[in-house]
């Protein structure tokens, strides 16, 4: 029996040179080397069009990004993007950027959302030029890592349950 072709993605989004914006990358680097059945790890800058391409054909996607909604830094938001619209604060609102929220909502409009899409947003504090995370944001990383591991194992469990 051959293993099924990997069609699940774990995507870390962010710019490692914009302080807390790099937390998505930090989280997925922590998850490298862990047993992630069926999942491929991808790092993205947050260009929405790249995301649309990256998840084409994927059956499940988990995405991790830094956000700023105004709550305490380090707060972890979890959204099921297949059932709820991303809140406005998720958007990197700009005249230029076509970001994560825009990609998800465009995919929804075009009927191209992955069947499963879970978004983790980690509340950031400092988005200025720099390569270090704020202490509150760094402290949230282990919690996000274990939630994602549980999520992935849950999905894997669901899959084997279906097969059985």
């Amino acid at each position, binding site marked *: 029996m051959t293993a099924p072709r990997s069609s699940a993605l774990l995507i870390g989004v962010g710019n490692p040179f914009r302080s807390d914006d790099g937390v998505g990358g930090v989280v997925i680097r922590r998850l490298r080397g862990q047993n992630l059945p069926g999942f491929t790890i991808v790092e993205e800058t947050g260009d929405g*069009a790249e995301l649309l391409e990256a998840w084409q054909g994927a059956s499940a996607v988990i995405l991790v990004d830094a956000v700023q909604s105004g709550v305490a830094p380090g707060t972890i938001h979890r959204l099921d993007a297949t059932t709820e619209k991303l809140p406005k604060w998720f958007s990197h609102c700009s005249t230029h950027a076509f970001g994560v929220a825009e990609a998800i909502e465009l995919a929804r409009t075009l009927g191209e959302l992955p069947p499963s899409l879970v978004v983790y947003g980690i509340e950031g504090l400092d988005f200025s030029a720099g390569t270090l995370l704020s202490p509150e944001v760094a402290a949230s990383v282990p919690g996000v890592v274990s939630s994602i591991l549980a999520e992935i194992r849950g999905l894997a469990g669901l899959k084997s349950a279906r097969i059985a």
Partner: protein
Amino acid sequence: MNAKTIKVDFLARVEGEGGLFVRVRDQRVTEVKLNIFEPPRFFEAFLRGRKFSEAPDITARICGICPVAYQMSSCHAAEDAFGVHIEGPIRELRRLLYCGEWIESHALHIYLLHAPDFLGYEDVIQMAKDHPEAVQRGLRLKKIGNQIMTVVGGREIHPINVRVGGFYKAPSKQQLKGLTEDLKWARDAAVETCRWVSTFTFPDFQRDYEFVALRHPDEYPLNEGRLVSSKGLDIPIQEYEQHFAEEHHKHSNALHSALLERGSYFVGPLARYNLNFDKLTPLAQKAARTAGLTATCRNPFQGILVRAVETVYACDEALRIIAHYEAPDKPYVEVTPRVSIGHGCTEAPRGILYHRYRYDDRGLISNAKIVPPTSQNLKAIEEDLSEFVSARLHLPNDRLQWQCEQAIRNYDPCISCATHFLKLRVERE
């Protein structure tokens, strides 16, 4: 008192990083301040003490939209300093990689960012409800640009295959041939893009701009050429800092770039087009003429149309390179560092990107200067807004705000290079 204030808050989510502010009093625009935070300043400091060979990969991180431009300008700067000139297939591969970046960046801007302004949609998500085929076409075009970057650059964002002197690994002839069919589709799609965009309504607006771009005797400029302008500038890139200076403004962290002799100038697709129309391929020239353009275009709102013409060119040029490509025996030329200063200036999708480095005898960077296209256009954007708003004071706030945003987007300001987030608000006093 008849006064109003238009405030555009770049970085509303990030305190203190900048914005646009327009003050109107007694039917006159009295003040325009554009203010963009610039990570290049941070990177200039970050580069000190790093090896010349690290600059392409470090500076590529300044911008997710135009990493190739940063890699190319930094490579050319090192090669300029160490006395190496790249010819043959390596030079062609660099042009091909740059075509990929132009295609993906122009498709993104035309379809996902700027077209909604012209068609009256809040954003592309709204536009996609009525124009799904156009959006799909834009996304596929962009993807084909990315495919070039994947094949030549090693991966689509932040290509890892570029090094000073050339590439770590040259793609095979077969790998490049594999792009041909998609590129033929892309070329047709780009011609269709010109036709589609030509049906938009363009506000009647132009000023007496000084356009600045590279010009090369044999080709439409990407990596090399002299710096020329529509007002007679014609210099080697090594003399950039004798003619251009960055001014520090009290209102802003950002440095505004200006021509010492004449002030503001305009870089990007419109500048390249006006200074190099004769170097476009016949197909690109024909697409321009069919879309109603002549060899000169001074309306910045038609920049979207010129981007479409340049997309035709980039597909054409990529197909030409692929058809003639033979892999080089060695994918790079060795360079030997020496105490020196090197200059690099290449045509990023949104205009000239200037790099200057000072190296020590081991090739360590002791000083770096990076001037991105967006900061070179800041003064022109401010002046556009001043004149543009003056003629439209009768418009209601929401309409005026819409048109201001549209006018800023004419320049495809690279917020990745310049700022991360941008929000726009209109206030009347």
